[in-house]
């Protein structure tokens, strides 16, 4: 009996993915920032965010998983069901611009986080990461690692359905 409980505990331990850390930022506002915008002379801060549900995607040209994810981001952009803003994380500007030229640019604009401070404020540890943000600029969900079509259709879109009715 005790043995069975013990094995069950160990089994639960195995099936629990400890690499995915629950973000303490869920249900909190996006941290304040004021950073330059890629391919633009201007700066962006929190007040520039849309009054709408949107995805905030952290990417970099040195990030291999981002290439794969980018096809899904292009799909999200073409479906126009949710808006998409990028954070270019610890990258070189030339590399980032070139990368968008090659793979397409699904973002409304890209915030340049050159020294990674905004990344630290957002608890980023595994690029790519994506935040689902509601119209009050509150973080509602976080996806660590590349977004797949499966995650987009079966997790992100249903969550958007739920939170877009919020006040």
């Amino acid at each position: 009996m005790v043995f069975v409980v013990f094995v069950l505990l160990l089994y639960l331990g195995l099936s629990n993915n400890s690499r995915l850390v629950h973000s303490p930022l869920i249900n909190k506002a996006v941290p304040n920032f004021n950073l330059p915008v890629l391919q633009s002379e201007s700066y962006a801060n929190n007040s520039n965010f849309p009054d709408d549900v949107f995805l905030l995607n952290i990417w970099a040209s040195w990030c291999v998983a981002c290439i794969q994810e980018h096809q899904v981001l292009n799909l999200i952009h073409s479906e126009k069901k949710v808006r998409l803003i990028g954070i270019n994380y610890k990258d070189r500007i030339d590399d980032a611009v070139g990368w968008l030229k090659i793979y397409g640019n699904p973002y409304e604009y890209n915030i340049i986080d050159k020294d990674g401070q905004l990344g630290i404020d957002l608890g980023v540890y595994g690029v790519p990461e994506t935040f689902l943000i509601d119209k009050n600029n509150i973080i509602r969900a976080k996806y660590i690692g590349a977004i797949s079509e499966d995650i987009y259709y079966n997790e992100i879109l249903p969550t958007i359905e739920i939170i877009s009715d919020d006040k």
Partner: protein
Amino acid sequence: MINKIFFFSLLMFISSSNSYGENIKDTKLYNKIITELRCMVCQNQNIAESEAPLAVDLRNKVKTMISNGYDEKHIKKYMSDRYSDFILYDPPFRAQNIILWIGPFLFLLIIYFILFRKNIIK
């Protein structure tokens, strides 16, 4: 000859330590904090051991925060507010992780109970 060996080893010792100057108190605090923060990228190392870019960034962050006069409690809260308690090797006592703290004692109690009962039956 012995002198040479002595100075060489002294040099090696100085260059291998994790210190960053300023003063001894800050250096001690810095070394203490970076060994108690988990590297989120390579989760079985602390940020003192890891050379992952994020670990380097977080070490620099700790350094800056210490030189700005923040204490250990503030720095650790700064980190756990962003990266959750998981970043702390010594997690605080909270409702969510109570099992972590009392679990081992509970387990000991259960084992003791089982052994004790077996003894009575005998």
